[in-house]
């Protein structure tokens, strides 16, 4: 029999018996970040493809959600800090090796971009909108003229934002559950999927919804594929990796993961979206809500479970 235990009474709050430093704020931030990334990517994509008119919700209306989501996400992140008065230190230095730093600066760039994007459509959405200041009018004209370039920049940063939410976790190899490079692409695809779900939910144009649903279906299938590979990777890994996988294969997260994330979040929406493409009537809001729910639960469970896995003891 093997025994390995602390015998000096170590019981540090939030560290023992399991790490529990990050609570709901980080998953919420990751979710909102992925969501915004998805929305902004597709807004830019369809502008580049020249489909502004057909994909009105995607390009002009849904992006309103993006800055709100990003600000909320940033606020959640701020709430998570334990030394809040010093949060501004984040912006005094650029540290390339720190994913947290990446996140701070990426957000610093993409949030203004999303504001500008939304602002550039204000006149179309709200008739009689006036910027009041001359330089703002000039700036708006500049943006509208260079919209395609802006779209490209936005798409690139949206991908960085989407991938970063996964890399943030996978950079911590000390937590065996996150120690896999699949997390980056997985969170990217998941984020884009949640973005698409939001746009589908908001859109009143059946054609637009059909186009987006098809894309979303592809992403969901990719997600399922990546999740399978995630588990295969763990089960072929070291003892700590196997233990991490076992949390989902009989351990405490089994039900919540497979039911909330996979069945409700991926399989059912895929099913409903397929049915819709085949012409059957499905409540418009159902698949998007399930995808959004599944997306948030996925990040929440990954953050909780990841902190439970550890190398030693």
């Amino acid at each position: 029999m093997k025994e390995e235990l602390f015998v000096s009474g170590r019981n540090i709050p939030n560290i023992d018996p399991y790490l529990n430093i990050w609570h709901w704020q980080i998953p919420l931030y990751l979710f909102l970040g992925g969501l915004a990334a998805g929305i902004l990517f597709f807004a830019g994509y369809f502008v580049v493809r020249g489909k502004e008119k057909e994909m009105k919700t995607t390009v002009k209306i849904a992006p309103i959600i993006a800055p709100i989501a990003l600000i909320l996400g940033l606020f959640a992140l701020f709430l998570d800090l334990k030394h809040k008065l010093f949060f501004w230190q984040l912006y005094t230095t650029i540290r390339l090796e720190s994913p947290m730093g990446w996140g701070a600066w990426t957000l610093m760039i993409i949030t203004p971009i999303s504001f500008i994007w939304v602002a550039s459509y204000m006149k179309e959405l709200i008739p009689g909108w006036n910027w009041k200041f001359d330089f703002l009018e000039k700036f708006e004209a500049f943006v509208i003229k260079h919209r395609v370039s802006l779209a490209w920049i936005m798409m690139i940063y949206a991908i960085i934002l989407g991938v970063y939410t996964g890399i943030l976790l996978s950079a911590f190899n000390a937590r065996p559950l996150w120690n896999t490079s699949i997390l980056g692409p997985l969170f990217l695809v998941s984020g884009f999927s949640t973005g698409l779900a939001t746009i589908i939910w908001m859109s009143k144009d059946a054609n637009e919804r059909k186009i987006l649903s098809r894309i979303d279906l592809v992403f969901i299938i990719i997600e399922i594929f990546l999740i399978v590979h995630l588990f295969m990777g763990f089960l072929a890994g070291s003892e700590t990796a196997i233990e991490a996988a076992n949390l989902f294969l009989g351990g405490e997260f089994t039900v919540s993961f497979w039911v909330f994330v996979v069945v409700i979040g991926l399989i059912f929406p895929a099913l409903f979206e397929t049915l819709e493409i085949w012409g059957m009537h499905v409540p418009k809001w159902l698949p998007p809500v399930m995808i959004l729910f599944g997306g948030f639960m996925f990040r929440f469970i990954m953050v909780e479970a990841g902190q439970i896995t550890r190398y030693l003891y």
Partner: protein
Amino acid sequence: MKTRRDFIKISTAGAGAAAISFKALGSKGFGLFESKTEGPVSDEDLTPYPTYCEVCFWKCAAWAYVDKNGTIRKVVGNKNDPHCNGRLCPRGTGGVGMVYDEDRLKTPLIRDTRKDGTQYFREATWDEALNKVADKMKEVKEKYGPEAFGLFNHGTPGGHFHHLLRAYGSESNAEPAFANCRGPRSSAYFSTFGAYVGSPECTDIRDTKCLVLIGSHLGENMHNSQVQEMSDAIDNGATIITVDPRFSTAAAHSNHWLPIKPSTDIALLMAWIHVLIYEGLYDKDYVEQYTFGLDYLKDHVKNMTPEWAYGITTIEPEEIRRTARAMADAAPAVIIHPGRHVVWYGDDTQRGRAMAILTALLGAWGKRGGLYFPEGVSVPAYPHPHFPEPKWTWKDWNAGRYPLATMGITTEALKASIPRYNYKHQLKAWLVAGTNLPLSMPDKPLFKEAADSVEFIAVMDTMPMDITGYADVIFPEATYLERYDVIRSAANREPNIALRMPAIEPKYDSKPGWWIAKQIGERLGLHDYFNYDDYSEVIDWQLKQLGTSLEEMKKIGVKKFPRKSGPLYLGDGENYDFNTTTGKIELYSVDFADHGFDPIPNYTKHPEPPQNFYRLIYGRAPMHTFSRTSNNPHLSDLMSENSVWVNPKVADLWGLKNGQEVWLKNQDDAITSFPVKVRVTERIRWDSVYMVHGFGHKNKKLSRAFGKGAADTEMITNVAVDPIMGGTGMRGNFITFLTEDPALEEKEVKA
């Protein structure tokens, strides 16, 4: 309209907030630029005060470092002190916690009765409390004689009260440390060598080539200098042999671990003696010159072969021979450690004798790497009149039994307090200083009855220990870091003394023991025995007699003196007169024979656990001193409760899981007041369980210790009394597991 009080409240809140923000801007720069962290203090900003530790009885000399705000930050060992060599143990390092523990006793307390009949402790002034005790002492003296006032003590606090009671006319005192701990070995070694092993024991561990631990869990009992020297011995490649039914820390660091069946140690010792004699491995010259009784011994152990011992102890005969030869190889640099807390089965003095005989056969007494001749500094007593002769003393409780006891036996003192035992000399009142009787004594019902029977109990302690719940008057003692005390002088390789002086003023309304004793003494008209104003005068006088002064000792803390009694060891073939009846080391004990006891130890079989029961073995943890430290914040952080060690096979049988809470019930149907967590571990035999002693406190005022773990002493109701010196053997108790709360079961039955 807001009242004036509300107004005051609001204004202070506002002022407070303004003050905080002002401070944030002021003291450490702007709040935004400087974090409000308080880091470590550099040694240059700290003032050291010499003291010696009181957390256990090893009394390591140390320096208490006080910062500019008058707070003791840390306690670090005195490098010149042979007890600690500059390194304190975890309890000494955590001793600061004792001073700043908010659960400390703060004011004198007197037991009083409310109108509805319930009793409670009310705060009183020192005058009131001291007067009450002094009056009671006068009363007892008139009615029954001063001898009827008894003292239970441990450590330096007791010393002052011992002095007080002797001046008053009583020598009715008992220390649990004797009959409930090391008593048997004192009597055993004294009858063999004519000398005591002392405390610290005179074991030359740092130079030994073979250390035998039978009845010692060094490393878990944190006898500082001995643990340090054991580490040195490991560095020097010494062979360590541990005999223990449990895989102790010492066993883990040993070359040989003998997992002996509990209660069979004498058989092993006698088998070792057999091997040494019959294989001719004993030190012939030494035995020839210094010992008496080899022929008797040789005859006595003829049939005590390793094969015979194997059947009893389950230790393989080859292993017995191997270890005996290892000891002989290392002789005379071999130590059979006398052990500590040797009160197991009632024949413990005989077991101590076997160990002493083994030591003598190996020629280790008085040799380098064996047992050395310690010497202490004799500190002159401060002048006082002759003590009055009491009409009877602690010896008289024994009424002729336990003839070789050298100190008062606590259980006898308890029985002498209970009228129905009809002792000729009865105790009517108690003074308790520095010992937590309810948790340290076996047979709790006996203690409770005794506490109920006496007319008066006064307790002096630093913490609201369980004993305070029985007191009529409680004196809050200042901790060792807040007071002057006697000069420490324990026998060692080099004679040395250590000074204790206060590092800070006593907190709350606590007072040093010497002051309390003196105040009571004054009230009893015994001023002449306390002819000083401050105890520092006594210390200064004594130090000047020794050729130093208080001023010098304040700077150095520890002072060593040259030996006067001769070298540490016996020279080869040197003539030596032992302080025994025969003048030689008695392999055959004439004293024992005279009193009708076995002159050479015999093995006796002791009761084994019945079906479904397991023998209770208990011991120490290195971060705690019995029950004294359970509430110390630093030390309870290290270990806040004990657990019951259960072998995995037994756990399987009972369906016990790691961390599960169980209640323990013993063979006399006693049940632990609190549950204890199970630790499933291979380190314990399947016929026994193990617990660390000192937990399961019942006094709610101990906020960190109350209800944590279970008290092993609650399970010790069967006491095997050693007929030779009254030692209370406690390892003959067996427990079984209760997985459901017994209190709930009772309720169900009643319904």
